[in-house]
């Protein structure tokens, strides 16, 4: 049953040291505020799962919260490298980072298998490339009907899924619209979950008969955090701040500029700072 709470309370009661955590979002709806809360609460020894680790995973890695990353594409889209991720892999700073690397198809299938309660995902993939040589979790299985060799990877079964969505109602039913990514699968595959939303409303409002809704009994905590996906975007609420993604490149390039930025913008701030970032879009809508 969904519990409506503050973000701090949601993270305290849901994310533990050593957990496997999937904070998903595919360009859209990336849970920045929730990631900052995990950093403020100094969680450590996390295994993070994400198809497209971007700024928030760069921040969690650089702040030393992460022991292992399971992923398929780690970059700043359209800009370049994730410098904190690279520093961890190339130089072991702030400490060594273990990686388990997949393709997008494998990751998407693994989430779907997790949501479906299966132990593994089966798909046609990884043919001829080197990833199976460096990732022992990639195996093969013969189709019992045709004999075709197919790739198999373990299902994702995170301890915690963390996502951001447009809105929830007071019972905690969550509506997701636009680029859906793998968020529904990630929540249904996980033992526990935290969903931040732009607003909690009496009624979810007009929507398609086939809208993507996570019913309240599939969701752990729901926290209202306006602007909680900034500088990512929320369809219908605010656009992606591409300039911010470009600026991140310079901030994260050096360890000291990174740490200073984190101190000023994360450790000394709270989730309410996110509302300020998107205030002009909220004012324009009213």
């Amino acid at each position, binding site marked *: 049953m969904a519990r409506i709470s503050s973000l701090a309370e949601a993270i305290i009661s849901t994310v533990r040291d050593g957990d496997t955590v999937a904070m998903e979002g*595919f*360009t*859209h709806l990336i849970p920045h505020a929730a990631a900052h809360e995990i950093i403020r609460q100094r969680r450590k020894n996390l295994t993070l799962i994400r*198809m*497209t680790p971007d700024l928030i995973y760069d921040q969690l890695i650089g702040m030393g919260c992460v022991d292992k990353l399971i*992923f*398929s*594409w*780690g*970059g700043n*889209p*359209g*800009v370049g*490298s*994730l410098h904190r*991720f*690279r520093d961890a*892999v*190339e130089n072991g700073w702030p400490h060594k980072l273990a990686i388990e*690397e997949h*393709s*997008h*198809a494998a990751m*998407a*299938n693994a*989430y*779907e298998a997790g949501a479906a309660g299966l132990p593994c995902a089966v*798909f*046609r*993939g*990884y*043919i*001829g*490339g*080197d*990833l199976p040589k*460096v990732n022992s979790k990639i195996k093969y299985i013969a189709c019992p009907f045709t004999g*075709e*060799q197919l790739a198999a990877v373990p299902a994702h079964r995170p301890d915690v899924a963390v996502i951001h969505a447009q809105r929830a109602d007071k019972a905690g039913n969550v509506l997701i619209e*636009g*680029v*859906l*990514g*793998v968020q*529904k*699968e990630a929540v249904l595959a996980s033992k526990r979950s935290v969903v931040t939303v732009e607003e909690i409303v009496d009624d979810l409002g007009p929507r398609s008969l086939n809208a*993507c809704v996570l019913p309240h009994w599939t969701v752990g905590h729901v926290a209202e955090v306006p602007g909680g996906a900034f500088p990512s*975007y929320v*369809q219908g609420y605010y*656009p*992606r*701040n*591409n*300039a*911010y*993604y470009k600026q991140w490149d310079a901030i994260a390039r050096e360890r000291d500029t990174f740490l200073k930025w984190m101190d000023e913008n994360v450790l000394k701030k709270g989730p309410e700072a996110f509302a300020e970032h998107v205030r002009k879009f909220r004012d324009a809508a009213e």
Partner: protein
Amino acid sequence: MADYKPNEMMTIAAARALKNDDVCFVGIGMPSAAANLARLTHAPGITLIYESGTLATKPNILPLSIGDGELCETAITTVSVPEMFRYWLQGGRIKVGFLGGAQIDKYANLNTTVVGAYDKPKVRLPGGGGAPEIATSCGEIFIIMAQGKRSFVDKLDFVTSIGHVTGGNSRSELGVKTKGPTKLITDLALFAPDPETKVMTVVSIHQGVTRAQIEENTGWPVKYAAKVDETAPPTARELEVLRDLQARTARATAEAA
């Protein structure tokens, strides 16, 4: 003829390779510019699909990231990412896939994973993303990459996604039924696989480029087709539409900041 840059020639040559009835899986950057240029010029009916799940999208500006709102708002529908990879890509619904990479070899295998050893990389690159399965599930693959000795290499540090593997029939011997890379479009020339050896072979050279220039920027002994064409330079309209698209994109990025 208007002045143009080698990158513009490359993007325009890639756009020309696309047809009106193609269904095309598009990545960010040059593939996205080329695919949308095709849509805005000779191929208005082309279906563009981005891996964020946006089907038949018609962006007015180029996305910075693969799941930008512009792609979703102009799509006929948006599906989840698992559906994208299972039904649409693995299901064989996509005719042309665009790829690029940090390194390419003469059989058009690509590396987007690491430079140096995997366990102790000199440069850790973003990784494969969708490429390993795009490379084998799309009907055919077009590759866009600017040439240079560091990127056009004799031996890849890591094979992220396969092209023609070790040449000859090696790709089909792995059980892969799709064609693989049929075109490699660079800032200097157009390459296509030799029918027998599958070595990527120069079939057309861009106007003003010499064979020596191509050889200086290729890390394997360059092969030429029996008949090598000269690539038609960009038309005024192609340049105008491409530059308008890029200017619109730059303005939109500045306004959103």
